[in-house]
């Protein structure tokens, strides 16, 4: 057998043998400084994870405030429409820029991607840490903006409202989004290089786990689209501070130009959010069905197709903006093309269940919830891509419901599913699966009560971003608010089940679900430099060599019969 030499960008002295078995990345060095200055991708990922979850708590609190305010028409818990406007702006900006965009790539991706590649770290560990601190800077700037009077522009910062509003925090928050954009770009760049350069021998492009394909497609969008947002926000700052007319018509600018610039980033950004979640779902479904994923290549290609199409459909956000009928028609037609790779993915996931051996673990429940919710989110996209129905539905609660099904019901549920999938790997502890599954069901029910109602609300004509509304809409709002409280209970239980694992969780085996990709071959939690010796790359979706081992309480990969990793076994397999 040939020894495989792994590239080691972390370039740590090779003292693995000298370490005790209990040594892992969490215990390798101690003290707060060892975290603050860490270059270890896992620790950076964990710091991202706590930061993102903290922001999620904050964004979620604002969501509950919004829903509570909407319980009755007119004032409910705040007398001021401005306060409400700040709440929905904060909810949107926090959830988009601080939570969903960094959640999967920067938090889970950072921890898992190098291990899946059998690498010791990402290609540029220092850049990785820098990305994290850019994120922190962005988050701090958001807080600064709140202290300076907040902002009430909506997370879309549409001009001329955003350049003329008297709210004091607009410039800091634009700067925050600008800085967060760079954090996202650097992470994307890091991952692209890592996937290109650090794949181990034997892992060809079509041997990569689908999570890597998804992260790779995401990284491309991050690198190509985010600079446009950065420049646009910078132009907005310039317009607001030194009154150069770019977007404001009273100074000779064009507000529709801003919308083009903004959506040229923000539409691809939707796929920055959803693609990694799709990658997670591919992993969870394949591993928990214990069978090869159905149509691997089609799923991989559809990720790239979605990334490509995402760049040429931005105009569908502007069907009513006064854009020409020809442009609207073209954008409508192209928008439908995104539906096809998305549908193909769903069909492939469903087909993966066929003749599989489906284990209903907590992550699997999340994946099934994802399939249900993403199907609704995707199908209601048809109403919005269609010209005549979009005119009626645009800027109503129908749109709000649609994008929550996609961004929360799919991207965030995918993220939470991934968290449950890799939690034992990351922290070495099993959470209470029963509680986790109950929490998943409660979130799922609460989500549908909250947001399905909003489809009706919107198609009946209720505009979005309304502090006050006609009394006939109240029943829908009440149901929706009750749903949001149910979700809050679900998320609380999720937190209890996950954090409870630190106190009474049993020690996690290396491979609790029966995965074949490389991250399941290192210990839980992984050692400081991931692999004591170079892992062997097999077919990551061939589960015939994965066996349940009651002694481990987990699965064991027995590759001795696999010719791909053990040439000596060639004869046996051929005979079989």
């Amino acid at each position: 057998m040939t020894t495989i030499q792994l590239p080691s960008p972390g370039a740590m002295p090779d003292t693995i043998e000298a370490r005790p078995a209990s040594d892992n990345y969490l215990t390798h060095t101690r003290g707060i400084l060892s975290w603050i200055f860490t270059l270890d991708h896992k620790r950076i990922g964990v710091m991202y994870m706590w930061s993102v979850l903290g922001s999620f708590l904050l964004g979620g609190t604002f969501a509950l405030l919004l829903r509570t305010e909407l319980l009755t028409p007119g004032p409910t818990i705040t007398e001021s429409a401005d306060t409400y406007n700040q709440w929905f702006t904060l909810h949107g900006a926090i959830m988009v820029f601080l939570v969903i965009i960094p959640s999967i790539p920067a938090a889970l991706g950072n921890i898992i991607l190098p291990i899946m590649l059998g690498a010791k770290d990402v290609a540029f560990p220092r850049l990785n840490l820098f990305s994290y601190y850019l994120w922190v800077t962005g988050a701090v700037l958001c807080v600064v903006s709140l202290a300076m009077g907040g902002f009430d522009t909506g997370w879309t910062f549409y001009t001329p409202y955003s350049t003329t509003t008297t709210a004091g925090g607009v410039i800091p928050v634009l700067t925050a989004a600008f800085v967060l954009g760079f954090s996202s770009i650097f992470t994307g760049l890091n991952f692209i290089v890592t996937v290109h350069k650090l794949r181990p021998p034997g892992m060809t492009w079509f041997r990569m786990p689908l999570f890597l394909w998804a992260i790779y497609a995401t990284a491309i969008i991050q690198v190509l689209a985010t600079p446009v947002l950065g420049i646009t926000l910078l132009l907005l700052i310039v317009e607001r501070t030194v009154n150069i007319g770019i977007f404001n018509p009273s100074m000779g600018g064009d507000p529709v130009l801003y919308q083009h610039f903004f959506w040229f980033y923000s539409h691809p950004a939707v796929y920055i959010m959803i693609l990694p979640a799709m990658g997670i779902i591919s992993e969870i479904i394949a591993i928990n069905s214990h069978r090869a994923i159905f149509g691997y290549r089609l799923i991989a290609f559809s990720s790239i197709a979605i990334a490509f199409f995402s760049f040429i459909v931005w105009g569908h956000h502007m069907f009513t903006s006064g854009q020409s009928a020809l442009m609207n028609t073209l954008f409508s037609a192209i928008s439908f093309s995104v539906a096809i790779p998305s549908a193909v993915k769903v069909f492939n996931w469903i087909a993966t269940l066929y003749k599989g051996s489906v284990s209903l673990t907590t992550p699997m429940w999340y994946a099934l919830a994802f399939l249900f919710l993403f199907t609704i989110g995707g199908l209601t996209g048809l109403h919005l891509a269609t010209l005549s129905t979009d005119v009626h539905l645009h800027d109503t609660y129908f749109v709000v419901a649609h994008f929550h099904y996609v961004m929360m019901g799919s991207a965030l549920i995918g993220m939470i599913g991934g968290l449950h999938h890799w939690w034992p790997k990351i922290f070495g502890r099993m959470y209470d699966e029963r509680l986790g599954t109950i929490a998943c069901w409660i979130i799922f029910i609460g989500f549908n009560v909250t947001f399905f109602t909003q489809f009706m609300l919107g198609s009946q004509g209720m505009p979005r971003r309304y502090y006050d509304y006609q009394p006939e809409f109240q029943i829908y709002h009440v149901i929706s608010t009750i749903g949001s409280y149910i979700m809050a209970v679900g998320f609380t239980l999720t937190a209890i089940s996950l954090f409870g694992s630190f106190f009474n969780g049993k020690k996690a085996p290396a491979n609790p679900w029966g995965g074949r990709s490389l991250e399941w071959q290192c210990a839980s939690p992984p050692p400081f430099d991931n692999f004591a010796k170079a892992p062997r790359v097999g077919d990551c979706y061939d589960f015939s060599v994965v066996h349940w081992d009651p002694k481990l309480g987990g699965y064991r990969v027995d590759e001795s019969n696999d010719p791909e990793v053990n040439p000596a076994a060639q004869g046996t397999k051929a005979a079989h």
Partner: protein
Amino acid sequence: MSMTHQILAHTVSQVSALAAFAQTGAAEPTAPTFWMPVGASTISQGVDHTLDVINWICYVFFALVVGLMVWFVVKYRHRTGDKFRTDYPSHNTPLEITWSVIPTIIVIGIFVVGFRSYLDIYTAPKNAFDIKVTAQKWAWSFQYPNGAVSDDLYIPAGRPVRLVLRSSDVLHSLYIPDFRVKRDIVPGRYTYAWFQCDFPTGQPGKTPRDPNAKTVSGPEDDAQAHTLFCTEYCGTGHSKMNRYVYVLDEASFGQWMTDQSQWMDKIPEEELYFKAGPKIFARCQQCHSLDGTVGIGPSWKGIIERVKAYPIVGDGKEYGTWEDYVRTSILVPGKYVVPTYGNVMPSFKGQLNDKAIDAVLGYMQQLEKFDTKTGKLKAEFDPATGMKK
């Protein structure tokens, strides 16, 4: 290929025929459904039909996906420790091509149906009746060809109406759900929206709406009006920037327009402040209070004394009199902004003429006669003479 082509052409022609059928006239507005509100315009049936087509496609696909998912999960449920099944297919190219092609055909069909009904929405007929619309924070002003101006929209029944939209500050969007019409209003540009409604709603009573109400009130006097919303976020008063659309038959519309254009002309100069004043103040009330409450703009309570105390008013100063100052503030609001308030007031040039400004000035001088909540004449004053009963 040709086979696919034929199926495609057939589907499209079928679907188009259905769409065309659905667009033929109806006797009354379509009743509200689970999804859609009342459909009262000539295009609403086409839009609703498109929505129905899409909905049914969604129901079928949703049932298919979730049904198969549940079936497979139940059927192939695995318990820890059992052996894994190994008889699964890893891929199936014909199947994968089929489920890529079928959605492609379906979305092309949806596109065609949506495009056809969109052309109806987009293209205004040549004989349309033009109404100019000015949107501003946070009010609508509708101007009719004879010079009449109104806060609610009045339209003739059975005639295409084209709205010429402009904004005097930020983005707004005009949305009438019952007509399935929406158009953004972009400062610095003119945009258009058109619709035709064949069903009169009746007229509202003469009392103006109370814009100070805690919540948005319904149309008065049971006229079955249609709601008109602003759907592009525009700040504090965004959710209150909604009015009603009244559809009048041709004759009443003509009469209404004449009355509306002359409503102030018939009022003698000395009666302007209590007959026209409250009606005009209703438009100012979003930002200005009468009881000293600080709003988006300064309160009108004690405004004359405060203005006279400003260093810019007086002999040799920028404004000779307080009346000059108020007049300028209405027509060129950014000229002098009271400190601590933002420069957010839109100009009312072209909307309020000299007579209307006289009414406002008179109103300010006689503020004690008006109710601070509603802006209307207090009960102890005679609405005919403005004097104490």
